[in-house]
């Protein structure tokens, strides 16, 4: 495979194999075992817009596996500000590196870069488009908690219109036969073309504005941040955002094994009281970004992950 632009680039079997690799790589991700599988390889980190977790976890993943990283650095001081096209930037970095991780504010940028590059591109987010490496770490987190991916009921809540993490994740979950509930204000509903696609692929999808009423029989509640700037005025924002906040007291009727996830950063949508509950998984989820990206880097660089890793009783 050339790169990972959308989840369509991976079959279900490939996804499960990568999650298996990730599971075995856990002690390496934790720094308990040094396994330089990617020694001599260089990752180009091209983040054309701000990123904390994605950029740092790619860098950590590469370094934990003995590889090296070169960064585009601040876009404001790079050749991009001089008007360089994405095509030219990619031509340059393609020559410097073995694989590229990229985030760009324009939708379709990752596919464009893949068409321009010889090395694999890992899409770390393109506008409101896709974020498949986030989806892989989300799937890993769900599998860790439930021991499976199929047949779960997953509530995706908050900004489903602009939230690229939920776009990629809902495609993947549909392929594994999960039931999806989209809980969002009407202004921030899942784009209709995505809902149509999911249903065309046999997806069991319902849409609602009632988050709290959807929690009781959910296996996963996936929260996202509602951004103020999406609303015409602050009063409207306050009214809408208030209905998409979770407090520990909202979880009393939830299933015991239900997990709450969030791609982070959170603002007010998950109250700190939730952190201490058995449902909170968002910090583990953020850590899983390292191990999922380690497995993806190995896959795209055609480096096999050993069947057993010393100290690998993960």
């Amino acid at each position: 495979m050339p790169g990972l632009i959308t989840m369509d680039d991976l079959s279900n079997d490939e996804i499960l194999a990568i999650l298996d690799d990730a599971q075995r790589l856990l002690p390496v991700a934790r720094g308990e075992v040094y396994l330089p599988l990617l020694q001599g390889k260089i990752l180009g980190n091209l983040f054309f817009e701000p990123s904390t977790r994605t950029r740092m976890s790619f860098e950590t993943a590469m370094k934990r596996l003995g590889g090296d990283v070169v960064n585009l650095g601040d876009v404001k001081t790079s050749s991009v500000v001089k008007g360089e096209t994405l095509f030219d930037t990619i031509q340059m970095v393609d020559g410097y590196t073995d694989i590229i991780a990229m985030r760009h504010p324009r939708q379709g940028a990752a596919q464009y870069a893949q068409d321009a590059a010889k090395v694999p591109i890992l899409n770390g987010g393109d506008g409101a488009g896709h974020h498949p490496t986030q989806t892989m770490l989300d799937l890993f987190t769900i599998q860790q908690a439930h021991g499976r991916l199929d047949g779960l009921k997953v509530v995706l809540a908050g900004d489903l219109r602009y939230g690229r993490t939920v776009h990629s994740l809902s495609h993947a979950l549909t392929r594994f036969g999960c039931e999806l509930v989209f809980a969002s204000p009407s202004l921030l509903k899942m784009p209709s073309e995505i809902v149509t696609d999911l249903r065309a692929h046999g997806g069991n999808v319902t849409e609602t504005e009632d988050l709290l009423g959807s929690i009781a029989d959910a296996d996963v509640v996936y929260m996202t941040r509602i951004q103020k700037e999406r609303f015409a005025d602050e009063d409207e924002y306050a009214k809408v955002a208030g209905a998409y906040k979770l407090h520990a007291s909202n979880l009393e009727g939830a299933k015991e094994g239900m997990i709450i996830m969030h791609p982070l950063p959170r603002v007010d949508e998950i109250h700190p009281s939730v952190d201490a509950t058995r449902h909170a998984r968002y910090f583990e989820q953020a850590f899983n970004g390292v191990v999922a990206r380690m497995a993806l880097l190995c896959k795209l660089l055609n480096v096999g992950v050993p069947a057993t890793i010393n100290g690998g009783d993960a």
Partner: protein
Amino acid sequence: MSQEHNMRRVTAIRNGTVIDHIPAGHAMRVLEMLGINKSSAVPVSMVMNVPSKKKGTKDIIKVEDRELTQDELNRLALVAPDAHVAIIRAYVVAEKLTIELGSEVTNVVRCTFSNCITINPREPLPHRLKVLSREPLELRCHYCGRPQDLEELVRNVV
């Protein structure tokens, strides 16, 4: 009303292109896609909503002294994929051209999504739209994946 009668609503042309079997009401759109407007120096005749055996009604356009190129034909595929195109030389049909809408439309129109990577005119890779369905016509950008609005696409001719 006969086919012959339809064609004679406007005078036969000596040289040029006849585009027949345009979906009724789409002739103006075809002209837009071909970039034929007031500033085009060539004479153009158009009939709209005339009877058609195949589709009930249809539009016909005759463009004098201009032969459509393959690129122009590709543009036509987006608005009138079943149109018949005849090149006329000295009053006779010299060539019949067929329009084939393949699985992708390349470098004909730009994606209509305002935040697509292809919005930057300096990006050199081709504009690519995938054909998802022919009837009704459904197109999606190869890069950003957004569905395309045909009304808007007409204004995005490359």
